[in-house]
Every structure is written in C-alpha cells, then in structure tokens.
C-alpha cells in the first residue's frame, strides 16, 4: 500500500471552508495538549480566553481596537500576495503611515475634523505607498526580489521612526512641554484629529469601519474590474499576461503602491484612533509586529478581503485576551504559541485543499495528468 499526493485539478468549494475550520479544531486540540503538559486546564483556559476576548465588559471594544491595524496589514498582504508579489514590508509601510498621518494632523491644526481626517488618510496612504514603491520599482525595473528588499526596509523604517523622535529635532518631536524634557515624545495632534467612535456599550473605532470599507473596495477591485482580472492573469500565468500585451511593470508598481498604502492606513488608524501622536518608542508600536501578523492573517484568510476582516477580528481577540489574562495562569508568550500553532495547522491543511491524498495502489497515468505549475515563487 502506498500513500500518494496528487494535485487537485478542481478545488471543491466546500473544502475551502472545511479545511480552515478543521485546521482550527486540530490547532485547539494540539494547544490543549500543550496546556495539559504544562499543568493548565485547557477547558477553563479556553473559557477564560473567550470571555476576555468577547464577552467580558468592554472586551469586545478592546478586541476591535486590537483588530483594526491587523485588518489593514492583512489587506496589505492580501493585495500583494494575490499577484505573487511577496510584500512583507507591511511593518515599515505602517510606520510610514503613522509618520504621514501625524504630519498631516500637525500641519493642518485648526482645521475642522472632517478635513483633518481626510488629510490624515491621504497622507498616510501616500507615505505607505511611497515606501512600498522602493521595493516595487526595484522589482519592476531591476527584477530585484521584493521579499528581501521589503523586509530589510522594515528595519530602516523602524530606525528612521525612532530617529525622528529620539535622536533629532524633527518636526514631529515635542521640544517644549515638561514631560518632553524628561523623555523624548512626539507632539500631540489637535483634538479635532482624534477619530470619532461609534456606539456606547460596544465602542467601534472609526478605523475598523474604514477597514471594512477598504476590504470592500479591494474585493470589488480584484473581482469586478479589468485591473483585477489582469492582476489575476499575471499571477496565474505571467507568460500569458506578457503575450497578451498586459503592462506588467505598471501593474507591479500599482499593486505595490496599493499594498503599501493599505498598510499605511493601518498606521493612520493607530494615530487617529488612539495614539494621537507619533509613537517612536522601540517598545511601543515597533514592538507589536502588526505588519508581520498581518501577513499570517492574510494567509489564514486565503487572501480574501472579507475573510481578512474576520480573521483579524479573531486574532485581535486572541491578542487582547492574552494581554488581559497575562499572569501566572496565563504566561506571556502563550498567545504567540497559540497563534503559531493555529498557523502551522492552517498552512499544513492547505495541502488538503491543493492536493488529494490517496491511500492505495498506484493508478496508471495519474502522474501524467498533472498540470503545469507556475514557478513564480522563485527568487530572481
């Protein structure tokens, strides 16, 4: 008896839902084993987690706040990965979003709230897009691999962000107030630049709604327009796209700018929803890794914009519960372990969507039917 793995010619729709759900179940079973092994009761832990994430007073509002940046960084990754452009620079593009948004908020102090909000969104989107265009241009014109360049630029962006507040007298730095003399901080944005919230018992940040709007637009762009169709063709078969005369370079630039802009919006929402200043502390915004988590959010969502919102909500809930419960019964690091195991099972489960596992005797001719696979992941 042999075990054979063959590529599925048609991926049944029910599998695309069943496999992620199944992966989650397996992940929670595996985590339960880890919890038992380290002397924690899995059932109470899960119950506490669920309460702290969703049902405790104020928990849902906190979860929405935590989920907001992940929606944007998830959309950033989804937008680029759809075209086989592996932009893993969402982290740095998010920092540039905060730089752009706080610049706009400070420059336009005195303007009305709607003007400020729009200006922050435009500036943050633009700053994130500009930062993403560096790997984009290198990829489009010099065929430099965007995975590594975008990754490296995250660190450059992080150090630049810290430089703006800690090591220079930049426009963003507060040099007058009393607290700024003790510890370097950014200037506070005008009150009109604080984004509104919706609801009273459950507070929905404006950024989260903006994220749902962005997801809808991204979905429409990719599934209802010519642009989206061409992006799809380029990712499925770069050769076919070139022969039919599609402008590959322009699309690379456009998709990278869109992707970076979305990550930038994540930074904008951070500034508008609750930071209200430029947070450059290496232990602050830079430590959360929203950009990296966004990539795995997108992967779990199988790059579907609406699923990104849902997964971001769940991961945001998990992170929120983790920080709420942190203590002897729930050591720090457990959330990362849980996230990691969910990812591992989801990534492994992907095999079942793309391939059919056959147990039994080898069938003649089965191997010959395998279709051509685009080798677009190769590092150029």
């Amino acid at each position, binding site marked *: 008896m042999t075990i054979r*793995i063959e590529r599925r010619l048609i991926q049944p729709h029910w599998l695309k839902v069943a496999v992620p759900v199944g992966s989650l179940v397996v992940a929670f079973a595996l985590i339960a084993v880890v919890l038992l092994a380290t002397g924690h009761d899995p059932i109470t832990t899960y119950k506490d987690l669920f309460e702290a994430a969703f049902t405790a007073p104020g928990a849902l509002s906190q979860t929405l706040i935590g989920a907001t940046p992940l929606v944007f960084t998830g959309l950033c990754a989804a937008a680029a990965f759809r075209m086989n452009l592996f932009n893993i620079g969402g982290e740095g593009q998010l920092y540039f979003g905060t730089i752009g948004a706080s610049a706009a908020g400070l420059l336009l102090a005195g303007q009305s709230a709607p003007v400020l909000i729009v200006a922050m969104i435009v500036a943050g989107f633009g700053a994130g897009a500009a930062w993403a265009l560096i790997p984009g241009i290198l990829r489009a014109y*010099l065929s430099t691999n965007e*995975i*590594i360049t975008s990754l490296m630029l995250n660190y450059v962006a992080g150090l630049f962000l810290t430089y703006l507040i800690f090591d220079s007298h930049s426009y963003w730095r507060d040099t007058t107030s009393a607290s700024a003399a003790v510890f370097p901080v950014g200037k506070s944005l005008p009150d009109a630049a604080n984004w509104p919230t919706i609801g009273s018992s459950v507070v929905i940040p404006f950024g989260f709604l903006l994220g749902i709007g962005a997801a809808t637009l991204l979905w429409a762009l990719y599934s209802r327009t010519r642009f989206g169709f061409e992006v799809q063709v380029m990712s499925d078969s770069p050769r076919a796209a070139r022969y039919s005369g599609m402008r590959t370079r322009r699309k690379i630039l456009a998709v990278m700018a869109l992707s970076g802009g979305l990550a930038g919006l994540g930074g904008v929402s951070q500034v508008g929803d609750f930071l209200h200043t430029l947070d450059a502390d290496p232990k602050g915004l830079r430590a959360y890794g929203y950009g990296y988590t966004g990539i795995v959010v997108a992967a779990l969502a199988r790059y579907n914009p609406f699923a990104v919102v849902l997964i971001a909500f769940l991961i945001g809930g998990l992170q929120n519960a983790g920080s709420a419960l942190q203590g002897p019964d729930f*050591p720090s690091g457990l959330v*990362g372990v849980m996230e990691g*195991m969910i990812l591992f099972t989801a990534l492994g489960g992907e095999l079942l969507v793309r391939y059919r596992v056959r147990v039994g005797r080898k069938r003649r001719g089965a191997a010959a039917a395998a279709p051509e696979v685009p080798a677009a*992941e190769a590092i150029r």
Partner: protein
Amino acid sequence: MNNSILVVIIASGIAYGTPLLFAALGELLAERSGVLNLGVEGMMLVGAVMGFWAIQRIGGPGHTALFLAVAVAALAGAAVALIFAFLVITLRANQIVSGLALTIFAGAAGLSSYLGNDLGLADSPAEHQFEPVDPFGLADMPILGPILFGQTWLVYASWVLVVLIALYLTRTRPGLNVRAVGESPQTADAMGISVSAYRYAHVVAGGALAGIGGACFTLALTPQWVDGITGGAGWIAIALVIFSFWRPELCLVGAYFFGACQVLPLQLQARDYGWVPPLFKTGLFQALPYVMTVVVLVIVSSGIAKRRLGAPGSLGVPFVREER
C-alpha cells in the same frame, strides 16, 4: 594603542558579529539547499532560552556545563527548525508565510517567552559564561592582540566552522549535492539525490546553528534571560546571507562589519568626538547594514553578477517530483 577606537570597534564588532555569523551560516546551509527560512529570529530565541536554562540547571565545572549548554541550544534550535521543515518540505506550505509563522510561534512573544516564564529564568545572572580566552598568551600584542586573541571559545569555534562549511560546500560530494539540490532539484532528483532528505538535513542543521547563535547572547554577550534578547539579530542574519553572496567566507567578513555597525554609534557616543557628524552617533546608523543589503541584492539581480554570485536557482520553490 589597544584602547584606540578602531581596535575596540573591530574587537567588539567580532564579539557582536559572532551570533550573526552562526545564524547566517545556518541560514546559508538552508538556502543553499533551496529553502528560505525566515524563522531565524524564532530559532535563535529558543536556542537562547534553552541554552540559558541548561547553564542554570547543569552543575559541574564551567567549561563542561557551557559545552553542554551550547549543545542544548543547538538541539532546541534544530527541534524548532524541524517543524518548519515538515511544513515546507513534506506539506509543501508557502516558505515565506511558514517562516514568519515560525517566528511568531517561537519568537519574543511566543515559545521562547513562554519557556522563559515557565522555567523561571528571568532576573538571575548566568551561573557560568564564556570568558575571553587567550590560548597563545598573545592578547597583549599591539592591535592584533585584542582582535584575534582576546575572544571567547565561541568566536574561535565560529572560525573553524567557516572553514569547515566552505570546504564542505566546495570539496565534498554531499556539499556539491546540496548545491545541486538548491540550484535545480529536478536535475538532482534525476541524479538519484533525495531532494527532501537533503533539504530536511540542511534546514535542521541551520536551526541548530541558529540556536547556537542565540546562545551566544545568553551565554556570552549578555549572560541573562530577557524576552526578545536577540533584538532582531535573526533578521540581520538573513540579510547577511545575501550580503555575502551565499558564501561562508564572505559571511565572516560581513558578520563583523554588521557587528561593528551595531557597536559604532555607542562607542562614538561614549568617546564624545567633536569631529564626528552627529548622524553617526544615532541609532539611524544601524540601518546601514540593511540599506547595503538592498544595494547588494540589486547588484546580484543584474545579469552578469547573477550567474556568478546570485542566489541558488530554486530558492523558495517547493519541489514536487510529480510536477515539473
């Protein structure tokens, strides 16, 4: 003379470059077999925490305990790498996402922090640590003394390792095979080389070296445990592999250059030179290795350089025998 800034920066650049060197050599082995593992930071942190745990628990004379602690760190790094290897080689998962997942799983807010907490490792200094040793009694020699003879055993071991890996990749049959696997797995497969066995072996070996790299922090540089002690060294190691054109001997040079870039701003601040431009004293200077890596990557992706210096041809591509 041995306190002059140049000597101090080179000597401490070597000390701070050593964890980068170990991790980069490990990543180099994985990438030469065609697997891009972005989980280096996670593997280093698990190695760092387990190495520190071992040194706190193993009694006995210092050098035996330290040797065992390094071995534990290597095993821990290898174990974490095995998860990644299973995902990307056997289950054919996306290497980029899996590598990031590994860092989230094992990294500063994941397994390494959990272990540090659960084993109660925080807030205590290491029982033993690697001290500089001077095998030939030459440490007081002008200039070269502190640079070449004032280092720890970890540094000397890394020099031996560079030679061994360079010889392995150019002079031995398995080393040539692994390069074939990285360049063209289909060809290697047709030659009768087991692509998955080679990839497993080199990813796991890479994890072991990353684990040792992490242990350099907790056993030598900053002998204690705090969450995220490696401070992004794993990402620099990934940059370093590209910066050194996937060659072990250049890794050595690059690691010390990157290490020196990290210590230079602090040294300049401490010495308060008036003539140094202020930018060199800020943390922004530490961005230089990343910027230079981007420049190097642009150079190697251009035509002529690509053939002589470029990445392994099949880096990042899963190998599925039935599909070619």
